[in-house]
């Protein structure tokens, strides 16, 4: 198949997939009640999913390279930024401190 045509078909097909996934439960439970177990499970989605996204971005320094020691600048930066997030619930401050620590450590380590 022609590459350009394939790409356009892919754009609409994947677009349909992402939109359907996004709309799925929002549309499904717009008119009916949610089963209690599902409602129970949903309380834990934010912590579970945010953890599953954040942790790998912090503890892996490259594909498949786990590094949990002070030599991992991202780990130190995330720990300090996490402390900031705990005391001051501010995204701006968390980013500023996190990136500041990351860049400083990079500079110090050469």
């Amino acid at each position, binding site marked *: 198949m022609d590459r350009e045509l394939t790409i356009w078909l892919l*754009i609409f097909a994947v677009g349909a997939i*992402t939109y359907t996934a996004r709309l799925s439960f929002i549309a499904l*439970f*717009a008119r009916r009640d949610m089963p209690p177990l599902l409602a129970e499970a949903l309380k*834990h989605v*934010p912590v579970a999913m945010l953890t*599953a996204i954040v942790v790998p971005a912090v503890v892996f320094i490259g594909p498949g390279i786990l590094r949990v020691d002070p030599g991992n600048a991202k780990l130190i930066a995330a720990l300090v930024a996490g402390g900031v997030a705990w005391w001051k619930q501010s*995204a701006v401050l968390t980013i500023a401190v996190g990136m500041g620590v990351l860049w400083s450590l990079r500079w110090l380590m050469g």
Partner: protein
Amino acid sequence: MRTHFSRTAFLEGIRDMAPMMLGVIPFGMVCGVGAITAGASPVAALAMSMIMFSGAAQIVATQLLVAGAPFAVILLSCLVVSLRLLMYSATMAPYLRPLDRRWRNLLSFVLTDQAFAGTLQRFKRSDDLRANASYFLGTGVLLWVTWQIATVAGIVAGQVIPASWQLEFVVPLCFLAVLVPLLRDRVSIVVFAVATVTVVALDAMPLRLSMICGGLLGIAAGIFGDKVMGKRG
């Protein structure tokens, strides 16, 4: 319920999501560059960002195109990396339920990792549905528009932001700012621990399935934790 637009809340959504853009821009540029590398025309590369509007799906699709994977395999892979959106959809469903259908359909389109993390606190904190929906729309519109601008920048200029700046680290830092304040009860700490161990242990899985598994096992641990340790307050 009829929903009217609240301009104030819309602008608050834009303001609160703005810092995240530091991390979103380099990612959008990568997607623009990736689409061109995969043989897309500039128009198709932009359409990819406008319609798919998912960095994870776009990266997977373009990488598999370059690798010459069959069409069905690419679709299936994009479906797998979109599974987390189901969880976001389910979590937002009770909050969006009272809205009218047009609003639900519109807000669903801009439901991304970033919009989910960014609006969560707002929906938990406030009962003003009209303002919350407008706030959500503000975060979503800023993300969508920024995503297109970053894609165009990537198409036109290539990846001009040096990788050594590590700006992509802004995104996990934003999520951290939402995550950490949630870890105030024992059950949530158990969820965090189980998700952490799982996502690290299963890192070798393809298509970042480790993320879905980590999330699901974390949720299961949370349900179990609620039963054992009692309801959290």
